[in-house]
């Protein structure tokens, strides 16, 4: 199969890939980069577990062809914590016990981060509308809603050095 060159800025670093025309952005991230925080949940845009930011917008990477993301700035869950410090939303997820099995968590955080970028103090209704496409089977969503609403006051947390 013919291969195409795709250039991305991935979590701040310029990267180049050779991919087939049908290769998904999700697979480039998970299989070529081994960044497995971005999850496969359904493959057809039903659950939101694969959400990443493409040029600042939340994008279902299971529905995005890698070639169509050529030249884009892509941020995955691994790119949120910068300089050893958790993003306030990541910290808020921990403070609010919004993590159970954790499989939906990366997608939840990427979508929540996008909402907070647009609207730093969302109301509960705004959170519910913005995140209604993200499925979670463990939590019943209340803790996740609280985490997004409380991220503004979560503060910083420096992770222990590796």
């Amino acid at each position, binding site marked *: 199969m013919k291969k195409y060159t795709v250039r991305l800025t991935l979590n701040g670093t310029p990267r180049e890939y050779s991919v087939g025309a049908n290769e998904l952005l999700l697979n480039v991230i998970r299989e070529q980069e081994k960044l497995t925080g971005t999850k496969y949940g359904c493959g057809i845009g039903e659950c939101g577990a694969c959400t990443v930011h493409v040029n600042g917008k939340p994008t279902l990477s299971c529905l995005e062809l890698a070639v169509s993301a050529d030249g884009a700035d892509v941020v995955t869950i691994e790119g949120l914590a910068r300089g050893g410090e958790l993003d306030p939303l990541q910290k808020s997820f921990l403070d609010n016990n919004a993590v159970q099995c954790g499989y939906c968590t990366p997608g939840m955080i990427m979508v929540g981060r996008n909402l907070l970028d647009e609207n730093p103090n969302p109301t509960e209704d705004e*959170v519910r509308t913005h995140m209604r496409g993200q499925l979670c089977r*463990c939590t019943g969503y209340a803790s996740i809603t609280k985490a997004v609403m409380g991220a503004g006051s979560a503060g910083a947390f420096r992770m222990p050095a590796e």
Partner: protein
Amino acid sequence: MLSTEFKSVGDASWRKDGIAKVTGSEKYAPDVSVDRMWFGRVLRSPHAHARIKSVDTSAAEALGAVCLTFADVPQTRYNERIVSTPPCLYRDRTVVADKARHVGEALVGVAAPTEELAEKALRAIKIEYEVLQVITTMEQARKDGAEPIHDTVLLDGKDKPIVNNVAVQRTIDVGDVEKGFAEAEYVIERSFKTSRIYHAQMEPKSVVCRPEIDGGITVWASTQSIHNTRILLGQIYDIPLSKVNVKKVMLGGSFGSSIQMNSVTPICVGLALKAGHPVKIATTREEDMHDHVRYPSEIKLKLGMKKDGTLIAGEMHANIDVGAHNIQAFPFLGGLGGFWASLYKLPNMKYVGTAVYTNKTPSCAMQGFGAPQAHFAVECLMDEIAHELGADPIDFKLNQYVGLGGTFWGQGPASKCIIRSDGVPELLKTGAELIGWDKRPKPGSQTGRMRKGIGMARGFHTSGVGHAKASGAEMIDYSGAIVKLNEDGTVDLIQSLMDHGGGTNHAISKIVAEELGVPTHMVGLSPCDTRTSLYDVTTHATRGIYAGGAAALKAAKEVKAQIIDWAARVLDVLPESLVIEPDEDLGQGVIYCPNLAERRMTVGELARYLHLNSLGTISSSQSMRQVNCPPAYVSYFVEVEVDTDTGQIHTRRAALGSDCGTVVNPALASGQLIGGLSKGQGYALTEDNQWDPETGELVSKGFWVDGKTPSMSESPKVGDIDTHFAHTYEPTGPFGAKGLGEAAKNPAAAAFGNAVYNALGIRFYEIPITPEKVLAALAAEKSTKSRQAAPKAPAPVAE
């Protein structure tokens, strides 16, 4: 009980796996890859019931793929859930099937260097089918002359013939039920139906197997038990267990769907052994939806009582559709009957449970294992009786429930215990206050478009399957733990017990910290595998903290005794004079003698002393079975709003109470209750699966959202859900703790059913209570009322 007496137990620390989970660095089975790894795909039957006349894999092999057909796998049948003991284990599976018994049945495994090639090879395989009669209902299955789905199964080493597609039947008799009904002054009988929903765990089942040079294998799999996966793989492929290593990886939800070894796990191993390469199979959502569902039920329940409502006799007939394979119908039927027996005092009871094969996705455990089904029937019927008698359902139930001093059936007739902690009265009182029980409307009194109603149901789940019997048990139930003190005073907890996500492993680290007197953060959860850990049966039956935590506590007690013993020598005091307490400022456990203030040292100082003087490592390895199975009580109060124009039911408010003894992870425990409400709402109101009666195909074809898993915008708002905990202490649990997880869902559907009754004055005996059913019931009621309101109209000739 939310306790302030403890230091670690009940603290608000971040869960230990939290940072890994919020940063995306946590590894689940689909995230595992190893060097030189091939990719596996599974050829699945498009037919619900078909004999395989021939399989031709030559074109696939010509492409460079390795194929695994029925001829390549061991022919001895096994059961994939080895929690039950051999006399209770119905074996009807092989690695790939000799016959298609449901759409999606695995028939051939294929592995190739790339996933693309594996898929291409899969499509090159030719199978000739002889299509058989498709059976999608229990009624069809039991008819004389119905096509047998299995001719025989293997039970305790012998072939057991399957007659009329009945997989297994169980009866339980207590007292004299005929005499009981003869003495009853009032008898009520109703039929209930619960649905066959999908687990909808976020992680599709995945597995990686690496063949090792010594003939062994290393396996990373979605599973609730790494040790049972190991034992099964060792048995199937005849590999000594010392050479079968199953690694513990995080579970992305499961809810019971990985109690059994998942169907792709042994296929992956077979492919890896044949190919001589590591192989990964990551299933698609579509495949996963064709692989497992909850047991549905048809329950006929008859209760006989005195005029005042005192129950004296009960009879239940429960029919369950197991689908194409009998994964665990025997314990399920026992569980359903036992949970019924444990809800209300019944001196005379008869229970007949029947499990029937059909050509559908196999049913398996899902949060509650027979309890949600039993709770729906019993809690709805008790509510109905209370209303008939003009009694408050809370008082009516409190008068007759099985509580303190009563006998609780942990999971069927073989595991029972005396109830030693009981928070039921407190739960119902608090829940009633929080929801505004006394202000609920009179059933059927509202007339507007939107009608609100409040419903209540109560219940429990067991905490493990512990029991006092030394032999003859139906189920295996024990856990192990290794606790060791590191050279800086930190502690490693090595435990194979899996965490579904509820925070079980974190909770157990707190139990260890509490016992040792060190801060919570000093106890680390070690990565482990079957070679380096002790056996744990599986995380099911709400046993994690109660049974797994107790095993870890046993090891921690032994470690603490050694710490005290060594510290006494170093500090030159009597061991009995020493205590250990966490010092948050030092970030250490401090060992000291209250009577001699200067005789003190930190646990870290002791550990360093032992290390530098070559005195050895303090550690303990313990294994244990709980001899009790205490009920983890729960109470549900929900308020719904029914839109009588659309038939939609909205969940408006909820007050959820748990009697889990000592609460080890307060916020996570509250989260378990709210998660239970969400799954309960789906179960009660929206979720279902249908199979085409002609073709046996899953009507949704594997589209997840067709299953109607609740989303955020369909859930009650944050401030409208209250959670509360009973002030109890379970004397047989670690630091007074018992279970919680599965209880969090069990009474949900009944609470919704009772709330809808309160709103509309109409009883629903079948879940999900969909908008279509609501509209149909409202229309039926309207036509009945209009007929009653117009007595002069001519009577209808025929209905």
